[in-house]
């Protein structure tokens, strides 16, 4: 008996090392997986931030603009030749530039948006006419790129879009403190533009906001109602099984298919406006509904049956039980699911391409039926643009998008923490 015992212990002991080694290996693998995913995340973020942080600063040229009475002496202040004001001011800074083509090169240092800026100033305050004012106008995107060091000096002249002469002028501007770098407010207040220095994400953010608003208003009530019906009222039979299987299937359908559906049904059949957040929101509703329904059903299931019994036991009707007790308890889970669905919708591009939200839209949308684009589509558009300055703007827009996503997911986590287990 005793010998048997010792032998058992020996066997156990001899195997122990092996068991622990296995456990250790498994733990190392797990840690390795976590480290690798974190590493990729860090690489992603640092590359985006590294590329994009410069977009938040913008080069401006300080010009002494003389609002010439003669040039502005027109019946309609809007149609005056503001570009000439800018050109005159530039020529004033560089009196030695005389040749026609040289002058054209010089004037190219200033963004074409400068004229619009002056126009706005005059329309806002006509008393400026006849006076000379110091104005900060945006520099051209190539100048901006050069200042930020994206265009190296040692590249042969033929391979860069800024000539040696322009470089010299820029140096002179910098030396005379005429070229400054300021916070890029345009990026947050303007819509899209062909000129990188005039483009901003406000149009895309507003478009995203309207689209998500439509999505939320449609998908949350529909999703919750569907979940409540399926979970609490629907009889268990083949029909509800079929519905359930299909909801799960819908969650796995590629999003571009929803775009095609939206194109065929909402645009072609119902004739809703193209490129509008209304239709975008409806398409994204189709896409997020399964997510919301599945999350809502899970959170309804997690409400303890004792609460239902308690309410039913004192004579609450089924609807009262649900609206007074089950729904309030399930709500945090439902909202979490909804926010995650919304975050998904915020990052969605493919279905929106199908319904025309990929159009180049300069104006900031004022409502859900105005043509608009959304953040991820804006990123896609900018990533597709050839100008060097759009690279940093693409990254900057990605940063904004990620910030919104993190904000939304953070809210979901907070909600869950706050309302978790109240019974």
């Amino acid at each position, binding site marked *: 008996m005793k010998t048997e015992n010792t032998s058992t212990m020996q066997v156990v002991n001899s195997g122990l090392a092996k068991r622990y080694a296995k456990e250790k290996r498994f733990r190392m693998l797990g840690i390795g997986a976590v480290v690798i995913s974190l590493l990729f995340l860090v690489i992603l973020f640092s590359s985006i931030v590294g590329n994009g942080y410069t977009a938040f600063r913008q080069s401006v040229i300080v010009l002494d603009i003389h609002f010439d009475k003669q040039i502005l002496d027109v019946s309609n202040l809007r149609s005056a030749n503001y570009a000439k004001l800018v050109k005159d001011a530039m020529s004033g800074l560089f009196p030695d530039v005389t040749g026609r083509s040289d002058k054209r090169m010089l004037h190219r240092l200033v963004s074409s948006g400068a004229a619009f800026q002056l126009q706005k100033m005059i329309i806002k305050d006509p008393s400026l006419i006849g006076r000379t004012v110091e104005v900060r106008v945006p520099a051209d995107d190539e100048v901006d790129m050069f200042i930020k060091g994206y265009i190296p000096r040692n590249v042969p002249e033929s391979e860069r879009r800024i000539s040696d002469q322009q470089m010299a002028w820029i140096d002179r501007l910098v030396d005379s403190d005429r070229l400054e770098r300021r916070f890029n407010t345009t990026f947050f207040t303007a819509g899209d533009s062909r000129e990188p220095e005039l483009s901003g994400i406000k149009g895309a953010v507003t478009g995203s906001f309207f689209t998500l608003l439509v999505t939320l208003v449609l998908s949350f009530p529909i999703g919750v109602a569907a979940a409540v019906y399926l979970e609490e009222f629907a*009889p*268990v039979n083949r029909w509800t099984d079929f519905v359930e299987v299909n909801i799960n299937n819908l969650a796995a359908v590629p999003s571009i298919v929803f775009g095609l559906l939206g194109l065929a049904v909402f645009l072609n059949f119902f004739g809703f406006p193209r490129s509008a957040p209304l239709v975008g929101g409806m398409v994204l509703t189709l896409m997020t509904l399964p997510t919301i329904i599945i999350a809502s059903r899970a959170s309804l299931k997690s409400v*303890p049956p*004792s*609460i*239902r*019994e*308690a*309410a*039913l*036991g*004192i*004579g*609450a*009707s089924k609807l*009262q039980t649900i609206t*007074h*007790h089950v729904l309030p*308890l399930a709500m945090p889970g439902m909202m979490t699911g909804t926010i995650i669905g919304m975050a998904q919708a915020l990052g969605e591009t493919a279905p929106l391409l199908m319904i025309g939200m990929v159009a180049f839209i300069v104006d900031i949308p004022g409502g859900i039926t105005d043509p608009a684009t959304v953040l991820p589509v804006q990123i896609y558009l900018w990533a597709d643009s050839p100008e060097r300055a759009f690279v940093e703007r693409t990254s900057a827009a990605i940063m904004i998008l990620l910030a919104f996503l993190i904000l939304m997911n953070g809210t979901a986590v907070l909600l869950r923490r706050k309302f978790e287990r*109240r*019974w």
Partner: protein
Amino acid sequence: MAMDTVIDMADTFGVGKQVHEQEVTKALSREDDSQTVGAPFVDAPRMVCRDVNVYYGEKQAISNVSLDVAEHEVLAMIGPSGCGKSTFLRCLNRMNDTVDICRVTGEILLDGRNIYDKSVDVVPLRAQVGMVFQKPNPFPKSIFENVAYGPKIHGLTNSRFELQDIVEDSLKKAGLWDEVSDRLDQPGTGLSGGQQQRLCIARAVAVRPEVILMDEPCSALDPIATATVEDLITELREHYTIVIVTHNMQQAARISQRTAYFHLGRLIEVNPTDQVFTNPRHRLTEDYITGRFG
């Protein structure tokens, strides 16, 4: 055939060695298999159950139970686990409706009406026949809201003052008023287990039911809280008819006037409590209360 069942059943409860075959045979010969022993019927009953059968899908959980519940009595239902006493209790206010696969046949009459009749609405029925559950299940709301919820949904009162009176009265009946009168706005889930259970009783009482069903109300409570709840049940008997399921035979002996013994879905014996515990007439009852199985 019938004997096999009984032996199977004995095996189920792990007492195959104790219940000898001859004894089982004796039990069967003494009473007819399908008949309930004792006095299941009373004069002027509050609730009348006749030939109640309950099925969960294919499985029969209750077979042919006929039983009366008298006015202002505490009727205790005892029996081993899985004998169907809770299932039967839940039939009395149709709580079994929530189980999709559950099917009930037979008659359960309240005020002369079959509660399983198509014309009967379960909402007023459950207001009339309240229920207290095994695990205290207060709503995750304030103590006041917990008690006030029933009167509110049934529209028993429209005025805030009356509602406060009802809440106070109910909490007093449940013996909880002195402990919580100064913190009615605190969550009901923050009370101790015994207090929670009394809160649930107050909640049931607030709707002014006629019958209160209690499904092992003390099984989750410590002895002191149990004693409080038992005293409460004795007091409540003055105003209400109480049907209580319990695992604790001493409890049944202490608080009930009549005791019904269930076994494998059948009602074996119903008699005045003291008689059941001192002189059981059925062999199965005797075996159960003497602790030979269960």
